């Protein structure tokens, strides 16, 4: 496990040292706060806009962080860094697991910071924090578990640009195909159903998203990530490395 943590640590060190990450988080929180100025333009819907925008930004930040790391892994393989690490006594799945935990941790930190910033801004602005908004943000943060697995899947198999494009397209499709929902093993089993994490309207309209649902969706995210990780490791094991 120490090897996995060592790989994960080198991954998160890379991202957390990037100034642009904090700039991204700062901009997101400022943008959330700016919705207060939209009182008139939204006909007093600015609180709802704040919740919705925050959820959108949290999701986008999670995706962007995963994409940044999806760029990183193929580059490391192309430039030979991965080969150096894999020449040490660690299995390929351990290397991938380390990368996954690194990506996941960074994404959780980034999305968590934005969600915390939202809570702070909302509390200061409205002196209240509806539970549904917090629950919606929990879903948006937990969503990075399967997104990181998707990013890792493509990053382990494709080149940088292709991996980033395929990750973004898959996340897009996974949010946009509720018509596939009637085929649960395919959609939710083989294909990701990220729409499960999309309760933005409910969070905005203060519709309670109950605890069991949050747990169930988190459990789905973990189970799906395990399945996709196993598939990634299977294919990656057969792959020739530079």
């Amino acid at each position, binding site marked *: 496990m*120490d*090897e996995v943590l*060592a*790989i994960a*640590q*080198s991954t998160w*060190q*890379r991202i957390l*040292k990037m100034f642009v990450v904090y700039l991204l988080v700062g901009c997101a929180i400022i943008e959330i706060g700016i919705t207060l100025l939209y009182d008139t333009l939204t006909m007093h819907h600015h609180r709802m806009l704040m919740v919705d925008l925050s959820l959108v930004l949290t999701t986008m930040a999670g995706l962007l962080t995963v994409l940044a790391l999806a760029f990183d892994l193929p580059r*490391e393989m192309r*430039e*030979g*860094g991965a*080969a*150096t*690490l*894999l*020449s*040490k*006594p*660690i*299995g390929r799945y351990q290397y991938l697991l380390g990368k996954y935990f690194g990506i996941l941790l960074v994404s959780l930190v980034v999305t968590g910071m934005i969600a915390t910033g939202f809570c702070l801004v909302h509390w200061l602005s409205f002196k209240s924090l509806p539970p549904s908004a917090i629950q919606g943000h929990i879903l948006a943060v937990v969503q990075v578990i399967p997104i990181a697995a998707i990013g890792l899947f493509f990053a382990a198999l494709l080149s940088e640009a292709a991996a980033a494009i395929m990750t973004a397209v898959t996340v897009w499709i996974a949010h946009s195909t509720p018509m596939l929902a009637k085929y649960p093993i395919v959609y939710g089993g083989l294909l990701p159903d990220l729409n499960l994490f999309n309760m933005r309207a409910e969070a905005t309209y203060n519709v309670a998203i109950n605890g069991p649902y949050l747990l169930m969706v988190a459990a789905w995210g973990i189970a799906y990530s395990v399945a996709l990780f196993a598939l990634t490791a299977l294919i990656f094991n*057969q792959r*020739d*490395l*530079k």
Partner: protein
Amino acid sequence: MDDHAIVTEELSKQYRGALWRLRPEAALKSLSLSVPRGVVFGFLGPNGAGKTTTIRCLMDLIRPSSGNAWVLGAPSGDVAIRQRVGYLPDNPMFSPHLTAMQFLKLCARLLKVPGDQRRSRIESALKEVDMMESASRPLREFSRGMIQRIGIAQTLLNEPDLLILDEPLVGLDPHGRKDLLEIVRRQKQRGACIFFCSHILSDVEKLCDQVGILFKGRLLCSGPLTELLGAKGMNVLVPAKEESLARELMLDAEDSHREADGSWQLSFTSESKVKRLQERSWPEGVLLQPRREGLEELFFRLTKQEKGDG
């Protein structure tokens, strides 16, 4: 097999190209090679011969299409055995955001170097490659040669029984080359086997106990350098005053060149020609010497021959 550091048996590799189709030319063709423990083995071959492919197969970075490979008596896919192996990749490029110290710490952690020994091992490796002063600088600021030195340092962290170095001399300045040769000698004295490939044949000849020459995926020869570089033909030294004789001999000679004092050195390798030369009577001042083949010569002869066959 246990007395060998590396053994390959009918090792072949055919890469796949676009649309998962096999490329027509195999990178390795039934490579059978054995490298005893404790020797310095030079793996030679022109560009694209399959040297790096062989090394990657040994490190389990690529999967052979057929055949087997063993490293230190264990199958090449055995993860645990890599704890006793140091590997320097071709054209190394490490995580640029890490400092040299952080990178070596990561490597030491992955190599399962005990926590209390990590720092001393890293410092000693950095001293070996003369990079102690740059330990806290990020790798992205390093030149090609400095990266190469750090790459060499990371191979030494676990005091390996086998060092696999892919083009270790590339990018190194003359000091670096000298240092590396010293490191190789020290590792050999420690009892480690060093398997490396290089294009700098003079260095290989100086360092290696054994060599293998690979050409287009096929092993042309392999064995102790003393056996491979045996007596081959005759050299005739003709003084400057015997220019007409020199010109006559030049017509049959495989190689000829003029020394600074105007004398001629002519090389004959064919047995029939050597026999004729030995039977002939020579004017005073002409010297006949048995000719010893150099590694470079051997390399060019074999590869040229192979090209001709092809």
